[in-house]
């Protein structure tokens, strides 16, 4: 438990992308047996610092020492040899390989020059049992939820003997009990004298588990603090570089007063998709912000996907503005004025190699079709307008979107949909892996959109977020809709009860 000597020091690290300084003169120190939070807003340089440390990116100047010995990591493999292993925010595993293969990829146990499958499965099973995860290690990774996949990634990093463990947003796709499980693992590792770098946006979690905090802002070091000496408000202020406008300022949007005469935008009757979500009814009116709440895998995202046509419904019918909608592909939904921001940004949201401009105009262009190409001027105008409105930070509009930080990428996807001027927006985890400031902005945006008369479905793992923004709450359990709460009924307690299976009226 006692925090030991310095095992990792980074001195005056600088790095720039395409002329934009991502890190300038950043220092970072990690001691043995401590959990050290690395905090900052999107684009503050957290991810870059981690990438530099793990050899995924080269730094331009500065020095990294492990246990006093200067090292250079030219690749993540080299970093691993030097005792640094990482679990990234986006899961970097092979979905088509088995869990055990993923765990031992690159260091498979061998016998007579061939892979020793028996030992591998046995060791994999032990490794997961040690973490209290009960899964079949022989089946392929894509059979499992994001949460489990994340746990596998963590298990892999934990299993590789290391001195420094980096966890980059590991909790963003885990539910509370899974987070607890992860924390207990982290504490165990800490006892063994590992240094853990914990990158997260969840302030609560930082105060729960961390010993020290290093704050970055705009690629510069703000400071290193002991958790006990830095009140939460101070932390937020340091991250944002200004006085913190409390999230509480966002008033829950009350559509209740005009609820009766608001026109119904979307009406689903018995809509369902076998194996994904059981038939459900849902009404969404103008100005509604509807939250969908439930545990991971309860069918939250599936419900949204069925409405959008990302998964084709096989029962029921969908009406939009009182007209029957026959959605066979997402394009039909886009044409009718529905927007869908998917849960998995990297896989289903951004088109990584395309520029910010192309990513933003893509949905509008898809709606217009192949032959009516938006003019170059028009495209640039749209892009500039939304980069301005949503405060998207990029070196310029032609920069590949994959170079942007996670939060800015998410804003690009949002901009893409706002540009189509939809009547109905489905936002699945729009705030995942995003810093507080941007979360705040997105929540405001949602409330404002509703005020303009748009209908919104907002899905989030953070109930507090939905409590602030939603006027109705749909509760999901085991792939079916089990309840609906509106206005004053929406309290954390009621939601929990409904999820747990009490009397959700």
């Amino acid at each position, binding site marked *: 438990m006692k925090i030991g000597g310095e095992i990792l020091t980074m001195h005056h690290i600088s790095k720039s992308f395409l002329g934009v300084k991502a890190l300038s003169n950043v220092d970072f120190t990690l001691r043995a047996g401590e959990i050290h939070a690395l905090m900052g807003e999107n684009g503050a340089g957290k991810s870059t610092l981690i990438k530099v440390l793990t050899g995924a990116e080269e730094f331009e100047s500065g020095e990294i020492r492990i246990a006093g010995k200067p090292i250079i990591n030219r690749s993540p493999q080299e970093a691993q040899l030097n005792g640094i292993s990482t679990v990234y925010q986006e899961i970097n595993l092979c979905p088509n390989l088995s869990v055990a293969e993923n765990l031992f990829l690159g260091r498979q146990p061998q016998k007579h020059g061939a892979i020793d499958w028996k030992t591998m499965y046995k060791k994999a099973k032990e490794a997961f049992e040690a973490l209290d995860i009960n899964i079949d290690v022989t089946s392929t990774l894509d059979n499992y939820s994001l949460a489990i996949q994340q746990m596998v990634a963590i298990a892999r990093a934990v299993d590789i003997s290391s001195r420094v463990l980096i966890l980059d947003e590991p909790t963003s796709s885990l539910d509370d009990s899974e987070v607890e499980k992860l924390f207990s693992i982290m504490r165990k590792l800490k006892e063994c004298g590992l240094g853990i770098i914990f990158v997260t946006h969840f302030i609560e979690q930082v105060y729960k588990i961390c010993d020290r905090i290093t704050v970055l802002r705009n690629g510069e070091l703000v400071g290193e603090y002991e958790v006990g000496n830095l009140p939460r408000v101070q932390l937020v202020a340091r991250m944002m570089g200004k006085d913190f406008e409390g999230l509480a300022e966002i008033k829950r949007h009350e559509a209740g007063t005009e609820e009766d005469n608001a026109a119904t935008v979307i009406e689903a009757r018995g809509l369902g998709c076998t194996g994904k979500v059981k038939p459900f009814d849902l009404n969404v009116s103008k100005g509604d912000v509807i939250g969908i709440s439930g545990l991971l895998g309860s069918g939250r995202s599936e419900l949204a996907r069925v409405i959008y046509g990302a998964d084709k419904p096989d029962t029921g019918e969908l009406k939009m503005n009182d007209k029957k909608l026959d959605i066979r592909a997402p394009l039909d939904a886009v044409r009718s004025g529905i927007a869908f921001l998917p849960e998995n940004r990297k896989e289903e949201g951004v088109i990584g*190699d395309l520029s910010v401009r192309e990513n933003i105009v893509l949905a509008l262009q*898809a709606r217009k079709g192949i032959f009516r*190409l938006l003019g170059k001027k028009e495209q640039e105008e749209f892009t500039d307008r939304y980069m301005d409105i949503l405060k998207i930070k990029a070196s310029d509009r032609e920069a590949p979107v994959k170079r942007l930080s996670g939060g800015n990428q998410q804003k690009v996807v949002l901009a893409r949909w706002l540009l189509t001027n939809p009547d109905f927006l489905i936002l699945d985890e729009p705030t995942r892996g995003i810093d507080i400031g941007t979360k705040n902005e997105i929540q405001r945006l949602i409330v404002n959109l509703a005020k303009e008369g748009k209908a919104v479905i907002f899905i989030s793992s953070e109930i507090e977020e939905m409590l602030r923004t939603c006027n109705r709450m749909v509760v999901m359990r085991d792939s079916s809709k089990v309840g609906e709460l509106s206005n004053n009924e929406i309290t954390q307690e009621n939601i929990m009860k409904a999820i747990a299976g009490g009397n959700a009226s």
Partner: protein
Amino acid sequence: MKKSNIKSKHIINHPLFLPLVCLLLVLIVNLIQTPSFFKITIQNGVLYGFIIDIINRSSGLIIMAVGMTLVVASSGGTDISVGAVSALAGAVCVAVLGTGESYRMPYIISLLLPLIAGMVCGAFNGFLVSYMRVQPMVATLILFTAGRGIAQLITGSFILYVKPVQFQYLGSFLPNVPIPTPCFVATFVILITWLTLKYTSLNMFIQSVGINPKASHLVGLNSKMITFFTYVFCSVCAAGAGLISVSRTASIDANNVGLNVELDAILAVAIGGNSLSGGKFSLFGSVIGAITIQALTTTLYAMHVSADQLPLYKAIVVIIIVALQSPEPKRWYYMIKSGISSGRSAREAN
């Protein structure tokens, strides 16, 4: 000083920089080895010389490379049936015209029908790849083998000759025109493709589908249709190249028309600086790639390398070209440069 630095960096980073350098290198070798290489004369009223030969001979490959570029971009896979499809198209063409003293059917049908045959082949490939989700190489392997079989079936396994002289216009020269006809065809194909990409959103859609098909689908693109289209287009291009090839020799030899040309077409795409895993692409890169390959072949012939040994020398040069364009040399270049400019960098200190 600094300004010119930025400018030179801009040129070096241009996607067409390395493909052009490679082409220039090949040409410079020629200048040294064969001084007459760049001489262009007029014989019998037509242009004549190595350079003309390169442009003429590369036309078919250029057309195929254009089609292949889109296939690679949209699906991250390659169409290995283009050679067989060109043979098939050639066979259809000759079968339409017959081997008599005059054409059996109007000439225009002998152009349209092979192109339609190409379209059907492409639809078959495209259907397998985009709707049945067969891996591109496996899907096109079917026509790679079967295509020539069908061509043999059409020609009855004979080498057939078309007698009227006009038939050779497409593959050689039109009367009183000093420039080879294939050059016009290739230019036409490039122009049409380029204009289509420039004035429709197809360019963005193809790249988008190639980079992230899932996200493209969710944004409302018909990913499957787009991939399907590129395969159809590629096969039509292959059929066009087949027509030129048949006209060149005024005959169809189903065993040899477009033999191994699929590999050159893929290579042209790669030499053009395009990633074979799909996504971003440069049409002109592939065109330069195709010309480079033909320039290489012509160069080696000019240096009196025999046809049998040709592949070996070609392979060596191709290795050099591809290695030059891989990311590593670029990194070395920057490392060496930064090493010179800042004395000993921090990295070297260790």
